[in-house]
């Protein structure tokens, strides 16, 4: 404690630093000295011993390599793989390498001065010996390769001796290095002990001083912390003790005293402030709560108001608020939307401004009675919009009462129900009226027709049903589109309505089929027919007027079928069917006209059905026979025949093919008939084979389009031909252009198959169809038959003559036979011959004949002919 009281802290710290610096200086001096000793030792090593050891190692290594090469040379010599000259050349190199080693050893002699006891002489001597051995070995081998063997052992021994000498030198160097390092160690040890002792002493003194200094500082801190702790706890009245006796301690005590004073003043100020703050906080809190209450009340009210306002503004129902005297106070937006009146228009006015005038005073009186007695009224009422349009609305009027249940306002709420009403009407319309034209549909028409029939029956007047069909309407849809087609139908509907009396009915059945129903026509049927014809003619005229479709002028005629009735009909469908038939007759008559359904019409229909039945029976019973029309060459000789079918009916007699062939096609009997003809023709051909003259005739058979189009047509022909075993070249099939044009590729394929069988093909009626020369070239015909119409008019019509000439020329070029059909006069034959025609058919030569007659004619004519060899 004496030490502590005599010196201040600063002075003691300075003393410790000085001691530490002295200690470090001592350590540094010792370190430097040791380092210099070590450096000298290291220099000796790196300049003498290490290079020496390196050199010896290198010599050893090179020697080993030399020995290996020498051994190789000896072995090569022994094996006779080298000649003497090569031995010398390789040996010469080895000797040179040994000389280089010798040079290195001589260089090392300089080291002997630095290392006592080092003796390189033996090393040199052994190396010299090894060199001699090398020279002797090479010399002897260059004289006699066989002597190599003797040198192998000697060379190894010599190399070993050199190695031993090198090891001896290394040993000497190592020993010297060991001695040197021992000497260094001894010297360092001698010096290190006192230095270490001195250092330990300095460190001990410094540590002791530090210990004491730390103790006194810690004590002072404790004292100050204790004092500050008491002050923090609020204790103010106690003696502040200095933390020690040093000057610094006394100064700390003074500072603490000043700090205590400051604390006292602060405490007083804070107490005053707290009182003030508490007071103000309380008053603020109260004011705040009051404000919050007010705000909450206001917000609730405002929200409520906003809600009512929005309901009022946004509801789809119109709302009117009035005074008790009816003066309008306010209306919402929906009111404006429905009535067309704006808010500004109606506020201050009476709701009567929208009255439609459709309701009488009694209606309004009843309404007000309800309001006054029950407080409200609900009902449908017709009103008028600002634009004058009258509309139905569903209205509800209520009375608004105040707190004392006194009425203060009326509120009217209404919706526009005109769309609802419209929808109801549309529903009805859909069921009975055509959606596009608005005309009665089939369902309503049925009603009306039945009604009219009943009327006509009762009154005895005639009624008339007009079945109207637009001509080629489908073309409108196809070319201009359905949109335009629809527009046309709408226009037609309007025109039809304009053609008849309002009491008459116009309806639409479907598509472009319209029906007009007229009644109260005269009782006399002739007069009624005249009147109906007048109406029909008017309709045709009206509908034929040009239409304006999307700015374009368009024409469309109509066909009309008419049926007159006077209560004796079976209803709508029966009448419609008859009118339809009549309309079809009108179409057949060339369209843009009208036809009555009358008994003659009816009879025609029945006749057709009967013919159909007869034809079926004829096919079944084979009531056909063949007639043959001969074909002639220019010398009047018969070259072939055309088979023509004849129908000899037991009831009808002869029926013309012109009459029954189209019917057979229509009812799909043509294949069977065609097959029968083919079969008969082939049978005939077979029969002719027995006669040398008839056997030369060819037989042409007409094939209908429907028959030819069948997939199995070729197979069928093949079957028939092979069944009868005829020569196919005698059979000729006649096809018309229209038959093959349908599906050209398929037809050509079939024709080629037929030709492959040997059957010949003729083109019938050439010139009446498209007759394109390009097609003719593509089609593999063997013959063309120039149609009778050209031949018969050829004399008076130059065009026909040209055509015939052209056809004949063309046929000649293409290498196709040409037959002129329908030749009736000598003049015709002459001109045809002049044009180069070689084959003829026609009445001038021969009519179609029964088979036997034809055969007889052929035999007769062929007798005259010079047989062609």
């Amino acid at each position, binding site marked *: 404690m004496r030490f502590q009281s005599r010196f201040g802290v600063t002075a003691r710290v300075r003393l410790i630093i000085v001691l530490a610096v002295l200690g470090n200086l001592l350590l540094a001096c010792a370190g430097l000295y040791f380092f210099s000793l070590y450096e000298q030792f290291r220099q000796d090593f790196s300049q003498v011993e290490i290079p020496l050891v390196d050199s010896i190692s290198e010599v050893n290594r090179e020697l080993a390599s030399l020995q290996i090469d020498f051994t190789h040379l000896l072995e090569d010599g022994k094996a006779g793989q080298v000649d*003497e000259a090569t031995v010398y*050349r390789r040996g010469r190199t080895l000797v040179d390498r040994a000389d280089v080693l010798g040079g290195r050893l001589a260089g090392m002699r300089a080291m002997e001065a630095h290392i006592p006891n080092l003796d390189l002489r033996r090393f040199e001597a052994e190396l010299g010996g090894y060199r001699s*051995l090398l*020279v*002797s070995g090479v010399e002897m081998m260059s*004289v006699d390769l066989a002597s190599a063997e003797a040198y192998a052992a000697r060379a190894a021994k010599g190399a070993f001796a050199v190695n031993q000498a090198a090891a001896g030198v290394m040993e000497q160097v190592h020993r010297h290095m060991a001695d040197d390092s021992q000497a260094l160690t001894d010297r360092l040890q001698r010096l290190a002990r006192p230095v270490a002792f001195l250092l330990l002493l300095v460190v001990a003194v410094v540590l002791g001083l530090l210990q004491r200094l730390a103790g006194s500082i810690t004590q002072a801190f404790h004292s100050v912390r204790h004092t500050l702790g008491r002050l923090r706890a609020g204790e103010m009245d106690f003696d502040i003790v200095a933390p020690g006796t040093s000057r610094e301690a006394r100064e700390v005590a003074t500072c603490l005293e000043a700090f205590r004073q400051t604390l006292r003043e602060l405490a007083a100020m804070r107490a005053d402030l707290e009182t003030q703050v508490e007071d103000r906080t309380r008053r603020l809190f109260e004011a705040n709560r009051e404000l919050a209450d007010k705000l909450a009340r206001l917000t609730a009210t405002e929200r409520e108001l906003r809600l009512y306002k929005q309901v009022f503004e946004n509801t789809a129902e119109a709302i009117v608020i009035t005074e008790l005297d009816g003066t309008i106070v306010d209306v919402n937006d929906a009111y404006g939307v429905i009535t067309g009146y704006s808010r500004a228009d109606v506020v201050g006015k009476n709701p009567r401004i929208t009255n439609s005038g459709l309701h009488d005073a009694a209606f309004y009186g009843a309404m007000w009675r309800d309001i006054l007695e029950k407080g409200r009224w609900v009902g449908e009422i017709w009103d008028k919009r600002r634009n004058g349009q009258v509309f139905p609305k569903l209205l509800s009027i209520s009375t608004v009462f105040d707190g004392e249940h006194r009425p203060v306002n009326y509120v009217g709420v209404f919706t526009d129900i005109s769309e609802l009403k419209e929808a109801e009407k549309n529903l009805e319309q859909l069921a009975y009226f055509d959606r596009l034209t608005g005309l009665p549909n089939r369902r309503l028409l049925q009603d009306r027709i039945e009604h009219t029939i009943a009327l006509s029956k009762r009154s005895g007047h005639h009624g008339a049903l007009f079945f109207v069909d637009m001509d080629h309407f489908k073309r409108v849809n196809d070319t201009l589109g359905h949109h335009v087609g629809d527009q046309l139908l709408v226009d037609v509907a309007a025109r039809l309505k304009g053609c008849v009396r309002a009491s008459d009915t116009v309806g639409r059945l479907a598509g472009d089929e319209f029906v007009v129903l007229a009644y109260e026509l005269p009782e006399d049927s002739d007069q009624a027919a005249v009147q109906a014809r007048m109406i029909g003619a008017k309709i045709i005229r009206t509908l034929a007027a040009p239409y304006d479709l999307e700015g374009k002028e368009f024409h469309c005629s109509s066909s009309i079928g008419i049926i007159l009735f006077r209560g004796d009909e079976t209803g709508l469908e029966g009448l419609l069917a008859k009118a339809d038939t009549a309309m079809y007759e009108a179409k057949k008559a060339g369209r843009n006209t009208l036809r009555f359904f009358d008994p003659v019409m009816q009879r025609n229909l029945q006749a057709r059905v009967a013919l159909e039945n007869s034809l079926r029976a004829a096919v079944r019973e084979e009531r056909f026979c063949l007639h043959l029309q001969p074909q002639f060459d220019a010398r009047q000789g018969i070259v072939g025949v055309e088979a023509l079918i004849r129908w000899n009916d037991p009831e009808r007699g002869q029926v013309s093919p012109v009459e029954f062939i189209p019917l057979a096609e229509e009812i799909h009997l043509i294949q069977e008939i065609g097959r029968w003809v083919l079969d008969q023709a082939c049978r005939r051909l077979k029969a002719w084979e027995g006669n040398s003259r008839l056997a030369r005739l060819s037989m042409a058979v007409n094939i209908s389009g429907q028959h030819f189009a069948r997939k199995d047509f070729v197979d069928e022909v093949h079957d028939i031909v092979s069944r009868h075993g005829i020569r196919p070249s005698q059979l000729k099939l006649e096809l018309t252009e229209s038959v093959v044009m349908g599906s050209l590729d398929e037809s050509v394929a079939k024709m080629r198959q037929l030709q492959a069988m040997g059957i010949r093909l003729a083109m019938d009626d050439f010139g009446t169809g498209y007759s394109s020369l390009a097609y003719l070239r593509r089609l593999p015909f063997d013959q063309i038959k120039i149609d009778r119409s050209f031949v018969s008019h050829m004399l008076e019509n130059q065009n026909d003559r040209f055509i015939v000439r052209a056809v004949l020329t063309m046929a000649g070029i293409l290498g196709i036979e040409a037959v002129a059909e329908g030749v009736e006069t000598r003049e015709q034959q002459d001109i045809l011959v002049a044009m180069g025609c070689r084959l003829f058919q026609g009445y001038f030569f021969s009519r179609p004949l029964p088979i036997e007659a034809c055969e007889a004619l052929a035999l007769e004519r062929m007798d005259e002919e010079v047989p062609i060899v």
Partner: protein
Amino acid sequence: MKHLPIALALILVAPLANAGEGNPPPEIFSQEKLQALAGQLAKGGYVFYFRHAATRHDQEDHQPAALADCASQRNLSEAGKDQATAIGAAFRELKIPVGRVIASPYCRCVDTARLAFSRFDVSDDLHFAIGLDKDQRQAKGEALRHLLAQAPAPGTNTVLVAHTANLEEATGIWPKPEGAAVLFRPDGQGGFRAIGRIPPELWADALAKPAKKR
């Protein structure tokens, strides 16, 4: 064809140049060739380089050589001595005039020269090159080339008797076997040309054949 001049030049120059390693060794003479050349040789102007005659292979040279002590060297065998004698006789028989005879200081060379030609000079230039270091070896090679290029006195031929290594160092030609000779012709301008190699048995045969002819 454009290389032709260069090729021609090489063919002409090659024999004149030192026959170094890589050049093909000169032709080995047959008896007929030797006889055919005899007339030419008789006119002189050639240098004969002899490798000493056959030696005893149970002896070896001491290293380094002790030239004065024949016992420390590999010496001529009996056959070698006969060879040497035959060489001399054949020279005389073929009338090949001999001018200078220079031998290596080794006993086997001295003995060969003496037995063949009775007279000779010894030159250290022909000291066996085999045990020498590189510089000395090259000096011996250079000295021999000088000797080979030196023209003999008119009407005579020079004879050199030495070892394998020296000729190898000088010309790259390895004379083989012992007793073999290589014939050179100095060109008088400091160069020489190797003419051919003469196997040792040719000399003995040369002695026998003319006798038969006669």
